[in-house]
């Protein structure tokens, strides 16, 4: 009997070993009924070829938009193109990937040594900028689904006072700077997170997103293209490119006769009206020059103040990072450790990572924010300094022209021009 007992112990030990080898508590049975084990299905992701098709369509719509607005001068064409863009890049492709968001991928790729991007993302980032460098912001007119959904819903645009526009014009720089900072530190993709319209494209989304989206669209009935003008970070880059574009669209196909008819046509207040000599007197000119020089000299001061201010706000800014948030939460409220309802804390404790490691990482991130804050603040200081300085630059001009930086090349103004180009 003893021997049998031993054998059983030994056998069960053997089974134990087998189970451990397979890391399975219950080994797969050997079926006698001829049952065939199914295999889990693995539906393929959207094929890579289709991604290249997206690039192709982007290129085609950019070319078409440029052609329509510069050569063909057809507002109607641009409108139909933007409807197509809205349907394809918006509702069909559901808003991802878009050029606006690609800023973050590029930034992260430049800062994170292991982050890889696919070539299509890079093309999505570069192509509209290259086009803007030659043809102006035709991307905004015909190839951006976010622009298209707002452009279609421009109902009764009102003219916004210059000072409001200028002051609000600082926000995109701020947004761009923060987006780059957050992407570079690997914290978050805030452009994607706060994209207001992607919820419509997916016909689904968090309620806050939908509500902000609806609010922006309603605002857009009167304040045309609010997202593009007040928030869009990619617009900043397009703006720079477009200012120096080679073949920007013009209101008139030939010589401007200053008939003023186009003046109310632009919903985005992007038409610059002629400035006559008579507004300036010698005295005013001297005063302006003095102010201009003063503000030019103040730019480094702005940059320093900005750098210092933003860098010192690194504590707040870095709280968005998960590790920083979690370490601070646990340091401030050590009693939360035993809170089993807090999934983040629970998962951290289960992960086996030590708290020292977490805090060390959080401190590293925070240090990155501190140094990154100097760059961001310096950049913002530079921007605001130049913007202020520019308020004392006057150029005489005699014709109606779109502001090359602000103009979305939508082509509305062209329909208002009575001038016909003679062949």
């Amino acid at each position, binding site marked *: 009997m003893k021997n049998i007992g*031993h054998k059983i*112990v030994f056998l*069960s*030990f053997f089974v*134990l*070993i087998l189970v*451990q080898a397979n890391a399975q508590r219950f080994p797969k049975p050997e079926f006698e009924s001829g049952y065939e084990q199914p295999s889990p299905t693995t539906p393929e992701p959207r094929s890579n070829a289709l991604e290249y098709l997206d690039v192709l369509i982007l290129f085609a719509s950019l070319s078409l938009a440029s052609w329509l607005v510069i050569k063909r001068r057809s507002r109607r064409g641009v409108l139909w193109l933007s409807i197509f863009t809205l349907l394809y890049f918006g509702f069909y492709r559901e808003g991802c990937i878009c050029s606006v968001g690609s800023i973050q991928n590029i930034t992260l790729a430049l800062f994170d040594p292991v982050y890889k991007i696919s070539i299509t993302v890079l093309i999505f980032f570069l192509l509209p900028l290259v086009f803007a460098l030659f043809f102006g912001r035709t991307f905004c007119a015909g190839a951006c689904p976010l622009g298209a959904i707002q452009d*279609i819903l421009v*109902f009764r645009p009102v003219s916004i006072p*210059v*000072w*409001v526009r*200028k*002051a609000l014009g*600082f926000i995109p720089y701020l947004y761009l700077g923060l987006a780059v900072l957050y992407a570079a530190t690997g914290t978050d993709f805030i452009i994607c997170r706060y994209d207001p319209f992607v919820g*419509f494209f997916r*016909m*689904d989304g968090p*309620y806050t997103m939908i509500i902000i989206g609806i609010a922006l669209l309603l605002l857009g009935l009167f304040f045309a293209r609010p997202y593009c003008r007040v928030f869009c970070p990619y617009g900043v880059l397009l703006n720079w490119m477009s200012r120096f574009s080679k073949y920007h669209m013009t209101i008139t196909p030939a010589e401007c006769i200053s*008939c*003023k*008819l186009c*003046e*109310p046509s632009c919903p985005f207040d992007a038409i610059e*009206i002629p400035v006559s000599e008579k*507004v*300036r007197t010698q005295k005013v000119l001297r005063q302006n020059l003095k102010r201009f020089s003063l*503000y030019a000299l103040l730019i480094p001061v702005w940059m320093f*103040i900005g750098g210092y*201010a933003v860098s*010192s*706000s690194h*504590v*707040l800014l870095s*709280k968005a990072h998960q590790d920083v948030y979690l*370490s*601070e939460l646990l*340091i*401030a409220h*050590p009693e939360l*450790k*035993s809170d089993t309802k807090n999934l983040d804390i629970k998962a951290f*404790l289960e992960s086996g*990572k*030590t*708290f*020292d490691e977490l*805090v060390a990482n*959080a*401190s590293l991130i925070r240090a990155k924010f501190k140094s990154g804050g100097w760059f961001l*603040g310096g950049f*913002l*200081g530079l921007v*605001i300094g130049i*913007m*202020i300085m520019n*308020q*004392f630059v*006057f150029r005489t001009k005699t014709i109606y022209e779109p502001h090359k930086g602000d103009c979305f090349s939508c082509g509305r103004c062209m329909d*208002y021009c009575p001038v016909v180009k003679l062949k």
Partner: protein
Amino acid sequence: MNQETKLKLLKQIILISAAFCILVAFLLIVNFWQMKKSNPLESQTIEALVQRLAVDDNNEELRKEIRSFDLLARKAYFTSAWQVKTGAYLLFFGGVVLALALKIRTDIQRKIEPPETITDDPMMNKFVSHRWLLVTGGLVFTLALLSAFLSNDYLKSYDPGQFVDTETSSQTETIEVIPIVESVATEKGDSAILSNAVEPVPQAVAETGGAPDTPKTVVKLAKAEDFKKNQSTFRGFLGQGISFHKNIPTNWDGSSGTNVKWKISLSKPGYNTPVIWGDKLFIAGADKTSRVVSCYNRHTGKLLWEKEADNIPGSPATPPKTTDDTGLAAPTMTVDGNCVYALFGTGDLIAFDLDGNRIWAKNLGVPANHYGHSSSLITWNGKIVVQYDTAKGGRMIAINTANGDFIWDIPRANKVSWSSPTLLESKGKMLIITSADPNVIANDLETGAEVWKSPVMSGEVAPSPGVFNNIIFVSNEYAKTVALDAENGGKVIWETDEYLSEVASPVAINGLLFLATSYGVLVCYDAMTGENVWEKEFSSGFYSSPMIAENKVYIIDMSGVMHIIKADRTGTIVKEPELGEAAFALPVFADGKIYLRGKSSLYCIGE
């Protein structure tokens, strides 16, 4: 259709589509609100009903009710999902119609207005703008600065010791009483290995990674003689439970202070037994906040140093949960003349030199052990042996004493255990004998290779193996007591289930095996046959193991009474002195002295 009717029609379309959109939006919001308020999939009702069914299992009515509730809940969920989807589409098409109609209407109504005379003064505009830009820039940067003042950088206020449980940990201190070892020379003392181990190994160079100011020194390995002179390990020389010291006291009284040379109270709890090297005595303690190693002058009781085992890479932020009868400092340390090595329930293994300089430290991985890790360390020939039987992935580990590197690290098929390794020289090899469920295993100390194993154990094994000549004795409660032949692949020589030890480890000398149970029986078996020679029952049970010193068994029971009995076939009780407090650690012997760890104090006894 004339302009007039067109406009009228458009106006109606606009009104209807706008009303439609608003209605759909309203319905969607209601749906959202409902789902938010009570998600049908997380219905409390069903949960409550299921709980009732668990009690009242045969209630078919109830079962039916649950099923219909469940069906309703799922229906509600999927209907609502369908409603959202459909609503979104309806809203979309409504919006498209509305937008189109509005567009056409504005296009029709649009008139070219006569150009206004420009009243704006561009210069004035720019001047106002510059002011507002100043305000904007100032505002943004001021807000940024303000945030710096308002936000608190908690990371700066972090101190590494902070993240430990501040919950009240029951301050139980555990004491293992070390029995006195008789100076009985075994044959093993003359064996080749034991004398070989004596030679200094030149390759062992102490690395000073952890403490930059510690000079690099060539480590001389301690000789077998030194290990015999000092009770430096759990259960003494080779972990066999036999002491070679002389003039061991037999009479004392802890409460009145008779023969108590000194007594100190311990700062932190722990069940480990103190270890001795030369004039120094080392003891470990731990609670949830910290883990410390303390060093005392064993003649005076003066604290020489006390060091924390902290900042160890891989050490868990929260110590693993342990029960109060195990704690985080259950494993006994080991000392080899160069360093004292301590293992804690967190898996932290740390080496301090005898002056308290930290030499190296590492974490072996947090042990998955439902009571807490308790297997003690033992060192021989430049290696620290760790029996690391955890609930998942048990291992046997040998670590280089000089630098903490793994010499070998082999997986084990055993379940979690609480016993400690015993060393035994057999056939020219130093074997590590370990007992756990299901195998008693002998590993070669040099290579870690498994020499033999014997699947005779079961349950939650805590007693460590005892040794006499080449016979191994293992025991566990609810299993059996077995004698195995170490020379012969661990063959069973005899076995019994008459008396089984729960915690105390068996010890053998003079052809006799002594076994102590947790319910107070001390039994003496013939080591060769398993015949019951004598048995004695005491009023208190044993967690501390018997030790042999000067041919007497020293065993302290849980109430603190030391039973001193002649280690022969008569079993004459020599004396039963009292410590006056509970004791769990083993007695530690030195010439003319016994050191006893009580629940909260450390005693030095000497006549």
